């Protein structure tokens, strides 16, 4: 009876899976090192992340999974749900034992819950594509601070990189305190120590904003008001598509003059 602990990275988890195989072990649980231990009398095996071992496991996964589902496990992992590690582990055990098309076996509770978790993550990534609102700063950069439920910034980087290829932009995860910055050439991960923006709603300090910014926000608010058909009012539907937690980032939802 053992539990494995790892450093809470996906690579770490894959390394742990590798170690399970090489030690011919089946752990009771795999959990992150820094979480509070839920077990009192179990032997603890600490796994050091090894990119090479992780790579080997990941290659095996890629070879066995089909097209659209290749990223299933990674997305599910990003959901940060408790106990997701063991679901992934059990899934991999079955996968590597030669089970075909495992990812469509929705009658199995592990496959089902992994699918649901990955859906949740994908939905959140979609929301980040929808509700990011850039503010133009004096030096011509487009900034947005936002707080995704899951760590999905890596999933939307290519989308924004392709879309805004000719402008410098920075999307900052306010909760996890890191951002992705694009300088017209490549995307970099950055951490800002001296913040020139409101850490609550990502609003850049007025003095640093471009002169045109206010004008465009005002236009957008006016457009948002006028495109609405009063006779068809349906606030429930609006709320369903646009959860309230995003409202503080949206210029159209601010009172503003």
């Amino acid at each position, binding site marked *: 009876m053992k539990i494995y602990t790892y450093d809470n990275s996906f690579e770490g988890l894959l390394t742990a899976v590798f170690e399970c195989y090489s030690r011919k072990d089946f752990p009771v649980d795999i959990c992150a090192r820094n979480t509070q231990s839920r077990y009192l009398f179990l032997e603890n095996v600490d796994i050091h992340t090894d990119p090479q071992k992780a790579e080997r496991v990941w290659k095996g996964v890629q070879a066995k999974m089909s097209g659209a589902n290749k990223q299933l496990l990674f997305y599910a992992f990003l959901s940060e749900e408790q106990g997701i590690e063991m679901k992934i582990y059990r899934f991999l055990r079955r996968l590597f034992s030669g089970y075909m*098309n495992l990812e*469509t*076996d*929705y*009658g*199995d509770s592990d496959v*089902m819950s992994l699918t*649901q978790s990955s859906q949740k993550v994908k939905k959140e990534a*979609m929301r980040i*594509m*929808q*509700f*990011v*609102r*850039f*503010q*133009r700063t004096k030096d011509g950069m*487009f900034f*947005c601070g936002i707080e995704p439920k899951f760590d999905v910034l890596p999933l939307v980087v290519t*989308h924004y990189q*392709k*879309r*805004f*290829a*000719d*402008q410098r932009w920075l999307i900052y995860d306010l909760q996890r305190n890191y951002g992705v910055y694009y300088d017209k050439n490549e995307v970099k991960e950055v951490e800002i120590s001296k913040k020139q923006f409101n850490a609550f709603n990502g609003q850049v300090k007025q003095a640093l904003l471009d002169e*045109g910014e206010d*004008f*465009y926000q*005002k*236009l*957008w608010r*006016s*457009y*948002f008001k*006028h*495109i*609405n*058909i*009063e*006779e*068809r*009012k*349906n*606030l*429930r*539907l*609006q709320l*369903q*598509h*646009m959860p309230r937690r995003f409202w503080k980032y*949206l210029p*159209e939802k601010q009172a503003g003059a």
Partner: protein
Amino acid sequence: MDEKIQKKLAILSDAAKYDVSCASSGSTRKNTGNGIGNGVAAGICHSFTDDGRCISLFKILMTNHCMYDCAYCVNRRTNDRPRATLSPQEIVDLTIGFYRRNYIEGLFLSSGVIKNPDFTMERMVLTAKKLRTEENFYGYIHLKAIPGASSELIEEAGIWADRLSVNMEIPTEPNLKKLAPEKNYPDIISPMTQIRDSILISKEERRKYRSAKLFAPAGQSTQLIVGATPETDREIILLSSGLYKNQNLKRVYFSGYLPVNDYDKRLPAISRPPLVRENRLYQSDWLMRFYHFKAEEILTEDHPFLDLDVDPKLGYALRNMHLFPVDINKADYEMILRVPGIGVLSAQKIIMARRHRRLTTLTLKELGVVLKRARYFITCNELAAKFSDWDPVRLKRQLVINSHSKYKKSLDSQLKLFADFKPVLPTLH
């Protein structure tokens, strides 16, 4: 200057809001690396207004001056409203400004008709061309083709735009003649046919040569006003099914009639827009496009109107009780699609999942099947068919009572009693 633009934007977005289409889907125009924008095939909605409709495109009229006098239109010549016109450059600047801030997916440009159709269309095409060539814009552009514009202009519009649309507005020609005497069907159908042919040609050519020009890669769409004229739902569904088949349309939009010109006696007097009817029409539209239903199956000749109490799929099931119950573990895909409460995604997942093991109701629930409706029409492992001998009327009652429909209020029979005093089908003079 800034204030003037703001005023114009307010007037022209206010005038554009009755266009329903806002889809930004179907185009995968790729940024070549130096421009702005990139198409996403699925489309992205960036915001939602208080009426729950999405904002995906920057929907604006070029001008709300119009030489026509159509009874159903808020911008008709004889209405006394504030009028404004945006120049192509102003529209380009607004679009780019919004796009760079990730407010929108692209532009949806429509317009009132000024001077003549060609003059109007030319300015619209110019706007799209400016966006593509001067700003290197690869986002989505939806252009409205003005009925009566020359075929050369429509051809050029298709080169710059992702989607073109010609609005039919009124589902039958005699009624169109009554409400919009200056318009006629040939003027609407001929650009539609031209766009269809050009799209087909371009598709064919692109199969042979990669460098062949794109022509409206996201296809064309149209819009019908529902409730302004006495057409039956059956007529509307048959028309839209014909449009999908013969004109290769991507979408037919329905717009519940809003009494914008309530002084006009040619139009029916209604207190609320027919939102439920509009919703049921969209559901039927979905059945045709994604659920392999034929128009004739949704509405029969003796039931020319959709049932407002239950959705059309449920209505179909209630009329065809002999086809049910469906065994989830055995039936083929087509039949599973027809079960009320099972959507396309669930149906596909059911097919894949049952290869591995027998499915139980628990799995169905987790797959997202609405068992509240589906359980009357399926058998599935431990779930026996105990409703198959029920009378459809009784079953319908049971389903309606159990549903917490968003339209419950409007379904209340008490309210209905009063609503019935109003003529539902106004006679046109």
